[in-house]
């Protein structure tokens, strides 16, 4: 079954190139259909490796630690599901949304490259390949953020580009340091070396560099300057991908993989995670409070929700990590839903300003209903999924006895609820705003992903127990089992 793994990278890359080639003759319909087929194939491929446990594909037959490997364990599986499902829904959404722009071809081509990069990051078992795929995904996302080539888009893209390139260089520098210490780029091999020879000062420096680099890619608070601009300027499906998937894969997943499996977590690192997480929660929530632009509001809320995940990871207990991973999954669902519906709203009304919107419920019933579901989920109202993950993180924090963090979690939840209520009051309910008069329901391809995501949010909330026990707990066990990871890569080959 290990032959499936390369296809997660190979298919999107092929599709990106093939679309550019065929697109010379057929520019409009073909790329849209072809990318739907591609992402659907990827979603289908996940079902093939669903219950297989850990799978390792050895590239070119060179066995690890010398060769390049791709590894799928339960953590990768969780991320693969998130990435490919959100990508599939965003592509369906783009089918109609892309008509805003002139050039269809490059949008889908870059989207496929971004997808290939993210799948590569998730599956890579080699720290340098992780960097390479991270760069592929980042480069594609820089270009996609500036896709509208308006003044604001370009400015946001440039800021993102400068900071992202800086972060990538720091990560590369860290990889260089790690390589000079351990003489290997295979993650399991590095981990084995570091377990036997701990206490190296150079590794501490690499730790800091990784924290900075991946933290910047994740948009956590001291490094969050690019995030609101980039997320609010990008086309809506890209915002959904950026916020729903990209910052998680390039930032949080890479942090988890590198710190839990490769370098190994210590008390210090966990405390740094906790501080960064709490800061992100508070700052994101406070900044989101005063926003008028709905996309900026969602972007700041992303920072705040990423804070929850970081806190969950930083607690370091199994329960905390379960909460963090569950929140990761949930956030991918509701935040893509929010960004996609913001795109629908902007498409119909021509504005993103809360003060100009209002009464969307009467004009766009389906979009309104699904975005209300999203808003309720994100602010943690009981039957929906956001509530459970936040509750688990809160319980985990209380169990550790960390009162400050628990207080921050509760406060942030209230803040989140209040500014999402403001969004609902000003945009969905209330009197019909001036710009909303001519709005109609968006076309079917845009409605379908919204409804599907809303249903996912609801179902995950209702069947939270089976989701947690089937997907989240195996991932959490993988994450905490460092020696198991090393054994699975180096043991039986």
């Amino acid at each position, binding site marked *: 079954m290990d*032959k499936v793994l*390369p296809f997660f990278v*190979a298919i999107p*890359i*092929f599709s990106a*190139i*093939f679309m*550019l*080639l065929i697109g*010379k003759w057929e520019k409009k319909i073909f790329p849209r259909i072809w990318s739907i087929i591609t992402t659907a194939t990827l979603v289908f491929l996940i079902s093939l490796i669903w219950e297989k446990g850990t799978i390792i*594909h*050895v*590239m*070119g*037959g060179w066995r690890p630690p010398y060769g390049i490997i791709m590894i799928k364990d339960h953590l990768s599986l969780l991320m693969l599901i998130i990435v490919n499902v959100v990508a599939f829904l965003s592509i369906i959404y783009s089918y109609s949304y892309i008509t805003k722009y002139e050039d269809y071809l490059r949008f889908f081509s870059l989207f496929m490259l971004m997808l290939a990069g993210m799948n590569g990051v998730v599956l890579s078992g080699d720290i340098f390949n992780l960097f390479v795929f991270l760069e592929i995904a980042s480069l594609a996302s820089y270009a996609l953020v500036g896709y509208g080539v308006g003044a604001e888009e370009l400015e946001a893209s440039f800021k993102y580009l400068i900071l992202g390139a800086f972060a990538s260089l720091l990560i590369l520098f860290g990889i260089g340091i790690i390589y000079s210490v351990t003489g290997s780029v295979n993650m399991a091999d590095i981990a084995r070396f570091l377990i036997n020879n701990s206490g190296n000062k150079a590794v501490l420096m690499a730790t800091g560099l990784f924290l900075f680099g991946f933290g910047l890619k994740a948009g956590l608070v001291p490094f969050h300057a690019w995030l609101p601009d980039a997320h609010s300027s990008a086309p809506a499906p890209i915002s959904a991908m950026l916020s729903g998937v990209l910052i998680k894969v390039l930032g949080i997943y890479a942090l988890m993989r590198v710190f839990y499996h490769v370098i190994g977590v210590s008390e210090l690192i966990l405390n740094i995670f906790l501080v960064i997480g709490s800061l992100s929660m508070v700052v994101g929530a406070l900044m989101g409070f005063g926003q008028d632009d709905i996309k900026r509001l969602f972007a700041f809320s992303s920072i705040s929700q990423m804070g929850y995940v970081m806190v969950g990871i930083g607690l370091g207990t199994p329960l905390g990590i379960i909460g963090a991973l569950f929140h990761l999954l949930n956030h991918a669902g509701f935040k893509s839903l929010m960004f996609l519906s913001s795109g629908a709203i902007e498409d119909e009304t021509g504005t993103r300003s809360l003060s100009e919107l209002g009464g969307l419920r009467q004009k766009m019933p389906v979009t309104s209903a699904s975005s209300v579901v999203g808003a309720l989920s994100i602010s943690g109202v009981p039957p929906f999924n956001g509530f459970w993950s936040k509750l688990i993180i809160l319980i985990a924090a209380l169990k550790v006895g960390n009162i400050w963090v628990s207080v921050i979690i509760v406060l942030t939840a209230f803040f989140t609820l209040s500014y999402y209520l403001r969004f609902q009051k000003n945009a969905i309910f209330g009197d019909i705003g001036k710009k909303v008069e001519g709005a109609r329901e968006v076309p079917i391809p845009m409605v379908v992903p919204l409804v599907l995501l809303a249903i996912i949010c609801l179902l995950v909330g209702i069947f939270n127990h089976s989701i947690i026990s089937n997907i989240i707990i195996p991932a959490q066990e993988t994450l905490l089992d460092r020696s198991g990871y090393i054994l699975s890569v180096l043991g039986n080959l």
Partner: protein
Amino acid sequence: MDKHTGMTLIVKMITQVMIGFLLVFGAYIVLYGHITPGGGFPGGVMIALAYILLTLAYGRKVVESKISGVAASIVDDLGALLFWLVGIIGLYIGGRYFYNFLGKGEPFNIFSAGTIIISNIGITLKVGMSLYAIFLALAILQRVVTEEEPKEEGE
């Protein structure tokens, strides 16, 4: 060739003489990539530089009549597909992505080391033509900027 655009006679003539040799040297770097230092990327850059030199000497129009941006990007895609295909054929034959399915051959011969030479050719086409396309794209952007600026009359 167009006598009235581009740089002076000296640059043009030297470019005309040298471009073929540059291509041969680029090909040498590529084809010997597996047994001497070099490979697809440096060779591709060299081939791209041959055309970039031509662009600098003669201006964009003359070069685009030889390799247009569209043709460059088609060759570019084909190169990438060739590289991709090497990996997939390896997966099909050997069960491993990028499995070396060709014979290893006698060391230090040009036909040795299996698929590396094919991958190198793919990379060359990809890198060479993308670099050339990037250059053309930036040159076009540059032109737009200068046209928008009020230009001083003269010459």
